[in-house]
């Protein structure tokens, strides 16, 4: 069976939003990581990773969340993960990753969060 993950990238007011739909498994997480890091490089003020359409995140995907978030911190460009489904949130909580990620329920909340932390947006 093929592993499918579609990604779209949207940039507005310096905020880049990567929207992923599909399974974030060991195979697709490599492309997902590359796309997120590429988008982070172009983002001026913030990056939103919208995973509302991702019901499954393998450990490699979890690692990608940490990697991109940590890279954003070093670049001083906040990274927000929005719309994580309940099973994904459960995994994040179980792995004790929540304190190290910026999680928001949806993209609107993610945008509001970024505007609150970056006054110039």
């Amino acid at each position: 069976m093929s592993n499918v993950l579609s990604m779209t990238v949207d940039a507005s007011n310096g905020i880049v939003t990567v929207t992923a739909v599909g399974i974030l498994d060991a195979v697709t997480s490599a492309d997902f990581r590359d796309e997120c890091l590429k988008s982070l490089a172009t983002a001026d003020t913030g990056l939103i990773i919208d995973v509302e359409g991702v019901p499954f995140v393998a450990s490699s995907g979890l690692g990608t969340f940490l990697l991109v978030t940590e890279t954003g911190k070093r670049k001083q460009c906040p990274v927000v993960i929005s719309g994580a489904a309940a099973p994904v949130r459960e995994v994040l909580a179980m792995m004790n990753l929540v304190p190290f990620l910026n999680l928001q329920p949806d993209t609107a909340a993610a945008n509001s969060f970024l505007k609150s932390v970056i006054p110039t947006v």
Partner: protein
Amino acid sequence: MSETKTRQLQRRRIVSMRLVFSLTAAALVMASVIGVGSVAERYLRRALTTEVQTRLMLEAQHLANLGSDALLDDFPELLLMPVVQQMQDDRPELAFVVLTDHEGLVQGHADSRRHGTQFELPKDLVPETSGAGQSNILQGDSELIVASVPIIRGEDELGVVHVGLWRSYLDDVVARSRRALVGVSAVMMVLAVTIASILMHVLLRPVTALRAGLERVGRGDLDTPMHLSDRTELGLLADTVNDMASQIRDSQQAMIEKERLDHEMDLARRIQASLMPDTGVKVGRFSGLGLFESAAEVGGDYFDVFELPEHQLGVFVADVAGKGLGGCLVTSMLAALVRTNRREFTSPRELLVRLDRDLAGFLEPGIFVTAFYGILDSRSGRFTFASAAHCPLLLARPSIGVVEEFTTEGVPLGILPHDVLEASLVDHSALLADGDLALIYTDGLTEAPRASDGEQYGVDRVKTVMRNGISRGSTEVLETLRREVSEWEGSDAHADDLTLLALCSDMSPETEVASIECTTDSTATGSLGRVFSEQDLAEATAAATALPVREFPVAVKDVEDWIAQGDALLVQAVYEYICNVQEHGFMAPRRPSLELWYWPSQLNHPLAGQVLIRDKGRPCPPDSVVSPDLEDSAVRMRGRGFGWEFMRRALENIDYRVIPKVGNLCLMKPRPPIKTRESVDV
């Protein structure tokens, strides 16, 4: 050698300084006399000539004055002849005195027969330069000086007076003067030679004592000083020779002391090297090989590789802070303690704790020990280790192209209270698969300074060497590191001890492991129980549904469909295990051999709800991977190593076994369903 020199001295022709000095003084006096005499004679001759010419001219003028009256007389010759005779008698140096009248006839002459005859001066006379007026004439040739003065009466010239002087008169006067000078010179020369001889005798008297003193020094007698009261430079030279002898004596003593110390250091270095194995140790399919090169100064590095019971291989590496004999002694003590205790402890941590306790009473303040101790189970490849502030373990995994760095926490032995070490030391473990290479080293490797600018060799270069050389074996990796560090430091003499210890497997992946490895309690509910053979496995899985996997990657959806109605965390745990086997468990290009069985929850079976996975790759037990430290930003940046952590957290139990001829079995038991699972808040 000294006899040869003596003979050379005896054969040498000695030139007496007294003779040289006296002859030199005489020569100098003679040269001075000759130089001064020649100059004085030239000036004397010139002055004498002027004087004689002037005097001759005055005498001629005086005679002319007398002659002016006499020539007016009828018989002037009678008046003039006595005057002329008197002059010539008084002055024998006068060649002639003649008065002529205006016709040139002789009127006054010492010889009366010349009266009335014509007088003529010699033909080759030439004018002289001084003493003459306009009418007075001074002429001369090689024999004569002639003064001619006219005899004037009123305005009439009555005649001429000619007075001639032998030029030899001048030579006689000069010769007399020269004879006096030569006499004085001879006296002065004798005086100079005598004085020079006496002076040299006095001055050179200390040379004999100096020579005797130097000969004593040459014979090796450096304790008898020369006593010279001489106040000249020779006395200073004697003092210098005494100082030189004293310094040579001190240098000889220092050299003897240094040779003694070098001998002791060499002995210590050999003892230190003898504490460490010079060949590799092989246990099962794993071998440990060490390399040690001491620094210029004997140091405090120590390593050991040894076989332990139960097919285990022990490796110990330590670095004593403190060089010299002190560090070497601590190393010796450490070696003895390790050899005494290594069979008593199955936990590396416990051995290090014991060493800390034993060393505590012996170490001087400021001396401490970093140590690494590891036990490798050759059957499973599990490497359990603890580190007391030692350099990180490096593990090269060619199957995935990475070199992992295991940094552990811990304090050095012997520097802090014992309970601090006990609290900080932890046993860690990693799995060594076929082809992997573990490297333990001391800071003499990574902190080796470059000769040109002091830059340290660094761990990244070590990793590069491991990555590039691992295919050629551990010996090649160690030799390459040794060579590169020497080139880096620009010398074969290292700044610090260099210790390298490599662990690797020389067995192919197909080779079967020796026995069972069980990482969890086999008596726990849901365990595999007594499954030790293919038949046991077939019986155990008879009631389960199977999911054979023939190619990678495996899709999550396939696992979900297979474990229908199963726990989502169990699905993901199974998926993570499959990914782990795919990534680490097989050496490309081998095809996977992976089988999965699931006992549905509704079955009335002891393993209901559980999943069993079998693979035949290299063993990969769940506790072989250290939990990632999320507080470490480097771990977060790496973004890897969460698969096993997920399995440990998601499952209630993992029963992992390595069974010969069967493979690696992993039984996964999910946690009981959690009703609040859907309400996890962010």
